[in-house]
């Protein structure tokens, strides 16, 4: 079968089986001036797959803001690069590995992390942190989730967590943050989005552009096998059906040990000065790396597949070109200096072989034992693929009335029991059981790991210098990822804006100035007009929010076809935001510090008025958990208020006048307050609220642009003055206490009053108790 493959006569039907449409096939014939052979068809099919070509998203992605003072490299390279001062740059990007993680959770997740790490060190940057944004189906049975489905979702979660952990732990990069959430729509299609961050000196950044006619093309890293063939086209670019488990052979298998060697060897090879260009082999493997390097460099390329190190015998050119075996790189060296490069890889025990040369003209020639196996003009293949402006259609407006919305409890109800349920829900409960399976402290840069601050904070040792007072200072970077699929389902534009705003707010709450963004856009089938409408709306929302908050998009990826049996996931744009903290010692964490400190609510919205309390609260975690209602609208968003708050938070951190800061998001103010207590062993809190809204709205609304601070009495005046300076509302709500209790009074009545231990127990242990049930 395998050897006969090259002799197969290509027909439009065979093209169709490769996911190539009749129209696309005609375009292939036009570019080649003839019919493609089977290897060429394979190459076109992966290069023009949705996953690699962005053919349905390109027209929309153009609307995103990508420029900024600090942006060194925007979208289009392996990762975005931003200037972080002191001659250093940060490379970062987020990417999805959703479908493989459903078919084979452990391997899917490992290779997701491996792929994004390679993207970072391909740029010449050493990876220093990973974050993971994960979405699963419900893990406890309820009216939408059967016990069997819940058990299956727990198994998927377990495999994904182990996979994420295994790769990062072994590679030696700390996994410092991210989020995990649960909705029924992810039951057949979990989301595994991995973000990696790396650091380099500005002049050390490498790009993937083939240059220098006659320069040798070198293959390095793991041997090529038959794994992952058509991962990009058939797995990532099609929805799931009942037969999806049969796609297991399309999932790649990762080896973090080889990747660690590859990292060290690549960085060392780059330092020799003999490397001209480098590109990792991720999706579409050798095909994508050869074609894109030649296309970007405006050159041709010629390689002989017989020289490619192979794991098994009898592989056809088709298989070698389409294999997605992991931990491989293609690089171009300076002619005459290949020995220096090869020696470095030999030292690290890795295969490194000259497989071809950079050529004049624009032709990519793929030979096998000297015979031409494929011959394709690289630029048209890489850049002139199909672009679709697919039809959009807004769904019929939802007709809702009060009876569809959250029913508020009668006045003066004690809400403690509801609060416990909320704290125990998987979305709100502590994720410690998960994050303890990740190495969070390797590399000794982690100033705030999972849950310690609203953003993950890693210091940059390379930036150490003497401050004005003679004390050594270091910069730090803060990173947060956010995305609320439920809100995007209800209103994709507003939901996407919230994702940007929350990630930026998280970064600012940690004390860092948000400077740039990366996005992972998880959606259903682009062939459905209502999905494309969601996509277009989300792009508009992201664009508007990123512009308003000064965080240009520097890269990311689009993951379409997240649907099973015709049912799409919630549209789920996940945003990662990077911020700079000039003095790492000024990092702000969420834990209360001292009894007697004053609890202050910062509210960016100087005046806030809504009468639609029920409609808004119906989209909250509280409504979902307590009443099983998901309806209404996400909270209205005020980007100007978010920006004022961000600037105020950065100012407060620089002045060092706050003891703790924690933003109000999932679960509302009550959860924020409780988490600041839980993080501070042995401290409680008492606050009182006087809003005119229903008590449940005041306690559990997830309205944005709000942060809860604790401030020592001596600094209160300074904090209030800073808030005024930035036109941010600041209200004293209560104080941190020494006793073991959490009390929230609403209009003079106890809304929540509980020993802290009781609350901490449900929050800290619920997830572990659930997941221990197989």
């Amino acid at each position, binding site marked *: 079968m395998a050897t006969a493959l090259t002799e197969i006569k290509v027909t439009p039907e065979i093209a169709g089986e490769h996911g190539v449409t009749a129209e696309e096939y005609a375009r292939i014939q036009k570019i080649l001036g003839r019919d493609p052979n089977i290897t060429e068809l394979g190459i076109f099919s992966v290069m023009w797959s949705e996953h690699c070509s962005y053919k349905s998203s390109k027209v929309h992605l153009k609307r995103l803001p990508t420029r900024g003072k600090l942006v060194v490299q925007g979208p289009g390279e392996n990762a975005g690069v931003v200037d972080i001062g002191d001659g250093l740059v940060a490379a970062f990007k987020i990417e999805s590995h959703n479908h493989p993680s459903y078919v084979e959770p452990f391997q899917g997740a490992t290779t997701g992390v491996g792929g994004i790490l390679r993207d970072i060190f391909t740029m010449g940057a050493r990876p220093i942190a990973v974050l993971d944004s994960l979405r699963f189906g419900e893990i406890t049975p309820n009216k939408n989730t059967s016990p069997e489905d819940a058990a299956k979702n727990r198994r998927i979660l377990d495999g994904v967590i*182990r996979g994420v*952990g*295994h790769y990062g*732990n*072994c*590679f*030696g990069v700390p996994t410092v943050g991210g989020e995990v959430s649960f909705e029924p729509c992810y039951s057949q299609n979990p989301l595994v989005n991995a973000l990696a961050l790396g650091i380099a000196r500005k002049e050390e950044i490498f790009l993937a552009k083939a240059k220098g006619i006659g320069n040798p093309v070198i293959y390095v890293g793991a041997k090529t096998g038959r794994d992952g063939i058509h991962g990009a086209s058939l797995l990532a670019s099609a929805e799931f059906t009942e037969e999806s488990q049969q796609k297991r052979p399309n999932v790649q298998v990762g*080896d*973090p*040990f*080889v990747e*660690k*060697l590859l990292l060290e060897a690549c960085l060392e090879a780059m330092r020799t000065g003999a490397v001209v260009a480098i590109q990792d082999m991720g999706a579409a493997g050798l095909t994508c790396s050869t074609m894109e390097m030649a296309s970007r460099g405006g050159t041709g390329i010629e390689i002989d597949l017989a020289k490619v190190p192979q794991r098994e015998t009898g592989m056809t050119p088709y298989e070698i070109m389409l294999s997605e075996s992991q931990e491989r790189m293609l690089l171009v060296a300076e002619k005459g200096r290949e020995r220096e490069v090869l020696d470095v890889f030999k030292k*690290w*025990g890795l295969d490194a072989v000259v497989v071809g040369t950079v050529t004049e003209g624009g032709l990519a020639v793929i030979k096998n034992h000297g015979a031409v196996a494929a011959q394709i003009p690289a630029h048209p293949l890489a850049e002139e693929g199909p672009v679709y402006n697919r039809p959009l259609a807004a769904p019929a407006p939802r007709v809702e009335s009060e009876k569809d919305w959250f029913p508020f409890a009668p006045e003066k109800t004690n809400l403690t029991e509801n609060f416990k349920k909320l704290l125990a829900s998987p979305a709100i409960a502590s994720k410690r059981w998960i994050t*303890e*399976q*990740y*190495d*969070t*402290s*390797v*590399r*000794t840069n*982690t*100033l705030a790991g999972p849950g310690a601050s609203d953003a993950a904070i890693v*210091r940059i*040792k390379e930036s150490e210098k003497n401050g004005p007072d003679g004390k050594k200072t270091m910069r730090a970077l803060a990173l947060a990822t956010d995305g609320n699929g439920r809100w995007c389902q209800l209103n994709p534009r507003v939901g996407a804006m919230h994702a940007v705003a929350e990630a930026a707010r998280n970064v600012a709450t940690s004390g860092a100035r948000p400077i740039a963004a990366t996005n992972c856009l998880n959606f259903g089938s682009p062939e459905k007009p209502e999905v494309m409408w969601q996509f277009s709306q989300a792009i508009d929302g992201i664009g508007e929010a990123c512009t308003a908050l000064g965080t240009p998009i520097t890269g990311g990826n689009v993951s379409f076809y997240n649907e099973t049996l015709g049912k799409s996931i919630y549209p789920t744009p996940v945003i990662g935001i990077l911020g700079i903290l000039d003095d*790492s*010692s000024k990092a702000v964490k969420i834990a209360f510090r001292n009894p007697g400190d004053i609890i202050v609510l910062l509210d960016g919205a100087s005046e806030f008025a809504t009468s639609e309390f029920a409609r808004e609260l119906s989209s909250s975690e509280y409504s979902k958990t307590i009443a099983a209602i998901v309806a209404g609208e996400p909270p209205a968003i005020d980007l100007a208020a978010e920006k004022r708050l961000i600037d105020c938070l950065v100012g407060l951190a620089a002045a060092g006048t706050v003891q703790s800061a924690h933003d109000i998001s999932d679960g509302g103010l009550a959860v924020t307050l409780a988490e600041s207590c839980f993080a501070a062993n042995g401290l409680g809190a008492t606050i009182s609220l006087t809003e005119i809204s229903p008590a449940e709205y005041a306690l559990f609304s997830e309205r944005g642009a709000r942060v809860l601070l604790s401030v020592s009495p001596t600094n209160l005046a300074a904090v209030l003055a800073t808030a005024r300076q930035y036109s941010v509302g600041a209200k004293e709500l209560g104080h941190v206490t020494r006793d073991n209790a959490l009390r929230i009074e609403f209009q003079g009545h106890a809304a929540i009053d509980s020993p802290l231990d009781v609350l901490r127990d449900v929050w800290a242990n619920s997830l572990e108790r659930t997941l221990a049930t197989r």
Partner: protein
Amino acid sequence: MKFGVVVFPGSNCDHDAFYALGNVLHKPVEFIWHQSQDLANCDAIILPGGFSYGDYLRTGAIARFSPVMKSVEKFANSGGMVLGICNGFQTLCEAGLLPGAMMRNSGLRFICRPVHIRVEQTDTPFTNAARKGQILKIPIAHSDGCYTADESDIADLEKNKQILFRYTTPDGVGRSAAAQEEDDAAGNPNGSMHNIAGICNRERNVAGLMPHPERAVESALDSADGLVIFQSMVEALVGAAKATA
């Protein structure tokens, strides 16, 4: 005085140990490549954490056969100071320089979190700067940290006072004073026998521990309690230099 940090393929805490010794304690330190049999005149050798050679067989099982380990064994047998951290501890056990072996954690999962360990002996080059009974807060990060040995080895370790560190609760008492309480409530994260977190050989010049002291050397990193182990080594080397001067 010079420290050597061995680099195996797959070591990933090598830079952290280097930074703790070189940048925090300002002591001379250099990397030693696994293919080298030359220990570069180092006075103390650190085997760092990581996944040497991928650890696909058993942790440390391949590393012990590397060229550098031949020299490390010779160095250790002639009284040289060797500290194995995490994967380095596993490698020392595989090499027979320390007794016992490491099994999968009792919970069967990788665990990374700060733990508390109690200093049990202070008459070694790794603990001489610590107080007996001192509680150190130091992170662990491992899948295979369940220290296991046969009864006679454990009895020897106890009798010869080779147990340097035991897992305990933050207050240092464990769930009870009994050394046999080998569970989470006693502060033992991985099921290690007798709550053993670190041991030394009978000659007291080779030691291994599962927690990562190199990750706890600055208050910015949540704890600087790990410093005392490296400071002990420095003091021991200074003392040895004076003795020979």
